Structures are given as structure tokens and as C-alpha cells.
């Protein structure tokens, strides 16, 4: 195993009191369907995300990753267990950008500010600063469809940041992008995270992406989703996806993931 102890790395160090996690899941379970024929999707998940920590949740298709994020985001309620997010409603980014096409890029960000209660006078300026942060200065008046895929996800990131939530949930945010753009956004995200004090819970299928980004990788099993294993990664940031350390740990995690998947082919 490439890394084994929790180590604080990079400039994104956790500055809050150690005792208060940014997200705390206690024995969370979730079932869908009618009482008689319910299907258990998540089963007894307990997971803490420390303030400022970057955690990647890894699992095969349909293992319940999105369901878990929805629970944390408050879009759905767990069947049992507790979810605490002391910082208030977390920000959430999706695989599809989910920007509103009837608004310009800037107005999308402003809407988030407005719904948060930011007075009108400040919105415009704050939105521009946020766009600036994702290197989209001057894109305020652009329509969503005029932006490239990478730009859209950056605007979505800016909109999520506008919520001013200390917790950012990301549901495969880069899965639909081409590989080049994805690599670039990995760098961008690492950079942003190291500059802000955000706690990030990042869902992905992509082992290399997880190892590239996270401080901690949590592997979920499927049907029902349970925490199968965890890895703490102490490679220094910024990493590259081709780094030998990343590659080695990826090989190891991939083997575990494939083992999980293979189990289902047998029955």
C-alpha cells in the first residue's frame, strides 16, 4: 500500500477544531421501493469528513454514490442513521453542468447569491470575483450554450462556491469532459481547494482521478453499498496522474475495485 496514515498535506490544511467534522454520517442506510419489496441501496455507512479534507468516494456504477451525496445534500432522507452537516446546506456539483440555460453565466452565479440572500448591490461584483476565481473573467454575459464543456463546469464550480458553504459535494463532475480538459480541471480544482478552506466529498468511478485528487479514498462495495476499504494518500500535491506513486496506488485500488465487481458476476 502506498500510504497508510492520515497526514495533512499542502496548503489546504485543516484549521478548524479537530473535534468537529464538516460532514458526519452515522450508520446511514437507504432503501427504495415499497415496504414489501424494498431494495437496500446503502447499508450502514459511517463516514466523517474533516474540515478542509478532500475525500474521494469510489465505487462501481449503481453502488449508491449519488444516493449518498443526495442524502448529504439534503435532497433526500436516509431510511435510518444520522447525517450532520454543521456548516449548513452543502454545495453540490453534478456530472452534467446543471447551469440554467435561460441565464447567462454570470446570472447563474448571481442566482445562487440571491437565493442565499446577498443584497442586489453586491451580487454583480461578487459574481465577477467568483468567475475570476475559475479564470473566466469576462464570461459574465455569456450564454451557457456559448461555453465549452470545461468552461461550463468551471461556471458550475463558481456557482457552487457562491453558496458559501464550507462543504462541497461533487458527483463525478469531470466524467463528461474530454481527457485533456479533465486533466486541466484536476489541476484547477487542486489549486482552488488548496486556496480555500473547503471540505470536499468527491464521487468518481475513476481510480486514477481519485488518487490524483484526494487525501483519502473510500471504496464502496455494491448492493448494498458499504464501505469496503479506505486509503489515505500522502503524496504531495500538485500531483500528476502519470506520477509513479499515483500509478502504483491506482493499480492496487483498481485490483480491489475489480474484485468487488467480479463478485457480482458470479451470482
Amino acid at each position, binding site marked *: 500500500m502506498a500510504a497508510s496514515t492520515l497526514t495533512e498535506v499542502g496548503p489546504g490544511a485543516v484549521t478548524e477544531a479537530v473535534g468537529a467534522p464538516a460532514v458526519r454520517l452515522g450508520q446511514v442506510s437507504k432503501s427504495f421501493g415499497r415496504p414489501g419489496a424494498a431494495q437496500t441501496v446503502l447499508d450502514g455507512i459511517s463516514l466523517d469528513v474533516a474540515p478542509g479534507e478532500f475525500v474521494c468516494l469510489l465505487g462501481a456504477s449503481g453502488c449508491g454514490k449519488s444516493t449518498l451525496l443526495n442524502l448529504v445534500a439534503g435532497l433526500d432522507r436516509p431510511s435510518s442513521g444520522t447525517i450532520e452537516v454543521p456548516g449548513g446546506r452543502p*454545495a453540490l456539483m453534478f456530472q452534467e453542468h446543471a447551469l440554467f440555460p*435561460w441565464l447567462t453565466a454570470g446570472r447563474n452565479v448571481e442566482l445562487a447569491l440571491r437565493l442565499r440572500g446577498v443584497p442586489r448591490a453586491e451580487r454583480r461584483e461578487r459574481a465577477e470575483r467568483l468567475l475570476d476565481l475559475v479564470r473566466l473573467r469576462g464570461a459574465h454575459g455569456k450564454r451557457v450554450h456559448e461555453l465549452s464543456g470545461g468552461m461550463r463546469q468551471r461556471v458550475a464550480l463558481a456557482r457552487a462556491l457562491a453558496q*458559501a458553504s464550507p462543504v462541497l459535494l461533487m458527483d463525478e463532475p469531470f466524467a463528461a469532459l474530454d481527457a485533456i480538459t479533465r486533466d486541466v480541471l484536476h489541476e484547477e480544482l487542486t489549486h482552488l481547494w488548496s486556496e480555500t478552506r473547503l471540505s470536499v466529498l468527491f464521487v468518481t468511478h475513476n481510480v486514477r482521478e481519485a488518487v490524483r485528487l484526494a487525501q483519502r479514498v473510500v471504496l464502496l462495495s455494491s448492493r448494498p453499498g458499504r464501505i469496503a476499504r479506505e486509503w489515505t494518500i500522502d503524496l504531495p500535491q500538485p500531483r500528476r496522474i502519470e506520477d509513479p506513486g499515483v500509478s502504483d496506488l491506482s493499480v492496487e485500488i483498481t485490483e480491489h475495485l475489480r474484485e468487488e465487481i467480479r463478485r457480482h458476476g458470479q451470482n
Partner: protein
Amino acid sequence: MARTEADAGTAGPPGGGPDAGSARPRGGQDRSEHPDLAGLEAGLDALETRAPVRASLGGVLLNKVLPPVVAVVLVVGAWQIAAAADVKPDYMLPGPLDVWDSLADLWYEGTLFEVIWHSVSRGALGFAASLAIGTPLGLLVARVRAVRAAIGPVLSGLQSLPSVAWVPAAIIWFGLNDSTIYAVVLLGAVPSIANGLIAGVDQVPPLFLRAGRTLGATGLRGIRYVLLPAALPGYLAGLKQGWAFSWRSLMAAELIASSPDLGIGLGQLLENARTNSDMSGVLAAIWLILIVGIGIELLVFAPLERRVLRSRGLLAGTS
């Protein structure tokens, strides 16, 4: 909201949180220290975006205006030839020139605009009323499951009843005045408008609603900031069709009755021409009804729809 703001307060310096205010680089780093990444992103952005191409005026004229004009000219030409060749006697198949004369008569009598205005103003009022009723109705049906199961099929079923069928009932219930006409128009247009909104709401990607909720747009704010704007394209399509139905029903209703209070509209023009066995008058009225109906659709609804679709990049040929 309050929770978030409160937390932002405890989590960092005042006014902070990871918002733009506090998102200034720690340790004095600056964005410009990453020229490599910046250059790469600029390159990607430049490669992947392109300015939408607008068709040139000449192109629009050539591709959009010319063909229908040619088509109309061909049809009118063939018609004139048929009429001139006396395929049928004049009083059965008047030529375009006869129809033109009928229109010219209306023009010189100074009644043309009055007649059109009567119908258009009624149509507009009826349409506005349909809008006021159809919109909340559509929203209710779209969002409340039981209501939908209960009256959803009725809404589309109503469209298979001809407007004229309502006329006797409407006269009895509402009396011989504009209410009757509006009742018939409403019965024609409300289902279209409601159905358009329902279709629009159904087509809203659930992702938008979820995104809205994470941003805090719940309840009425969700409807106002997310649901309605997202459903707009379908709603507009419904409005367009609703107008066609308003107009159609109005014409059917105008055929029933005329009174000095009601004034003469295009429907009565048609009916009067028919009473006079005046075929060229009948054809003139049909043309007027068609032209005014299509004209309003093209002048009012089509640009509205095109604008909305274009601003969302949903119009073929712009993205």
C-alpha cells in the same frame, strides 16, 4: 440561509467563508503565478468555443422568404388560369381577381380594418383570458399527481370537440353577448395552453430541479426561479398552438350571431358572404381569416419562441 451565514461567520474571518470575499489566495499566491495552467485553459476555451454564425440577410431572403412567395405566386397563378379557363362557372370558382375585388370593396367601404380589428381584439382578449386560466391550471395538473390523473385526459379530450358544438350551450348559459364568444374561445384555447405548460414542465430535466434545490430554490421560489423558466420553451409552443385554437374557436363562434353590440368580425363576414351566395366574398373571408391568423402567429409568437430558443442555444443552426 441563516445557517449558512452563521457558519460562514464561525468558520473564518467576518464576511468570510469560502465565498469570493475570503477566497483570496492564502499565502499571498496569485492566480497569475500559474501562467502554465492559465495558458492551457485559455487555449482550450479558444478551441472549443466559437461565435454563433448568424445567417445573412440575403440568405434569409433567399431561403425563407423566396420559397413561400414562389409557392403563393404559383398557386394564385394556377387558380387564375383555372378561373380564366372557366373550369367551373364564375359564381362557383371565382378567380383571384374577383376575390381581390371583394377585398378592395371592403377596403373602399372602409370596413376592412374595422372587421379585422373586431376579431383580433376579441381574439387577443380571449387569448389573454385563456392564458390567465390555462397557466395556473396547467401548473396544477403538471405538479399535482391526483389532479393530473383526474383531469389530464379530459384536457386533451376537449380538443376533439368542435368549437361549434359548444355554441348552443354557451348561448344558453352566457346569453347573447361577448361572454358567449369568450366562453367558446376559452374552451378551445385553455386546454392547448395548459397542455403546453404540462409538456413543458414534464420536459424540465429533473437535474435543474435538484440543482435549484441545492441552491435553496424550494417551494414557490423553486417554481419562480427554476420550474417556470425551465418550462418556458414548451409553454411557448403551447401558447402558439393555443393562439391557433383561440382564433379557430373565435371564428366558429362569430359565425353564430351578430348584433350591433358585438360588431362584425371576420366570422360574420364569411357568414354574410355565404348568405349572399357570394363565393368570392366567402373566399375573401377565408383568406383574411387565414392571413390574420397566420400573420399573428408569425409576427407575435414565432419571434418570441425563436428568441427564447436562441438564447438557450436550442435553435438548430445557431450553436
